[in-house]
């Protein structure tokens, strides 16, 4: 799901850096407010889980590959702002150590996955969990996979319109929305089923502890 470096125009990632910087500042304040001896070990373990999950690529029929993220789990357990903070850390480590994603595109990936995914996951969970806890957890995981994919597909698909030569040749990612939306969304709708199941299993396990 990570957008690699070189796919997005500066007109996209520079405003995204400004937006994400505000989000990181708010998330840091939220972290300082909530931090205690019990929060940090749990946050460390689930951040590590997200880092590993994002590094394990699962091949899908048709020649593409996807990965789980653990964002649904983080969002349900810690809320969207702490999730945004730790997912940003995970994405930075992935860019620097594994070559997945990139430094210029970091704010776009972080906003789409860490904030968009976790806000959607929290909303889905809060809507369904009061009546059926497991359905709420499943929805959180599914939305945490599908909503970031939709946001990333839109950002990628807008690149030919945002940055192109005088004769219309795209300077960065070359495919438009009609191509990116189905190509990115369909695999993640399927992946979301696994992410939803993983969220149910992990959060249920944590609550029994």
């Amino acid at each position, binding site marked *: 799901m990570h957008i690699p470096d070189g796919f997005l125009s500066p007109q996209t990632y520079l405003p995204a850096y400004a937006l994400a910087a505000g989000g990181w500042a708010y998330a840091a304040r939220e972290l300082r407010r909530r931090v205690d001896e019990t929060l940090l070990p749990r946050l460390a373990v689930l951040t590590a889980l997200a880092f590993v999950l994002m590094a394990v*690529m699962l091949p899908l029929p048709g020649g593409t590959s996807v990965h789980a993220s653990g964002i649904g789990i983080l969002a349900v357990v810690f809320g969207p702002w702490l999730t945004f903070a730790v997912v940003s850390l995970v994405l930075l*480590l992935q860019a620097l150590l594994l070559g997945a994603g990139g430094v210029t595109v970091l704010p776009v990936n972080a906003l789409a996955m860490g904030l968009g995914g976790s806000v959607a996951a929290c909303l889905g969970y809060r809507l369904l969990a009061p009546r059926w806890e497991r359905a709420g957890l499943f929805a959180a995981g599914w939305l945490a996979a599908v909503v970031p994919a939709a946001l990333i597909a839109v950002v990628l698909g807008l690149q030919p319109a945002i940055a192109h030569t005088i004769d219309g040749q795209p300077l960065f990612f070359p495919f438009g929305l009609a191509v990116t939306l189905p190509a990115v969304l369909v695999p993640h709708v399927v992946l979301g089923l696994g992410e939803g199941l993983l969220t149910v299993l992990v959060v249920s396990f944590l609550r029994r502890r």
Partner: protein
Amino acid sequence: MRILLALPAALLAGTLHAHGLSHSAQPGSAVIVELRYADGSPFSYESAEVYRPAETVPFLVGRTDANGRLAFVPDRSGDWRVRAFSEDGHGGDFTVAAAPDGRASAPSAGLGTLGGLAVGLAVIFGIFGIWSVFVWRRS
């Protein structure tokens, strides 16, 4: 009369010849770039572009082959830019140092997946571990 007949025939022959396409198989050195997903599966049949050093017009536009490979024959030395895209947002944008004799060196592959995972986990637990010590002392 013969000249009048020969002139259009010569012109026609020239025109027909212009539609021909000569081909030759040259032994030589190409740079082969292999693209793979993180799980090792080939980045097959995807769009790819190659740019000469410091140029913005593509030197080669095409697709990777079934094995995720792309070959080009550099005609000058320098950092050749390679871009590859799939419709679902996978791909890369990187440079390969290449020379006309086929010598090439890609940027270092770095730590590898397992090494990167180990270092990343160490950094995560290190950050939260040190932070926990500070929080524990403060409380």
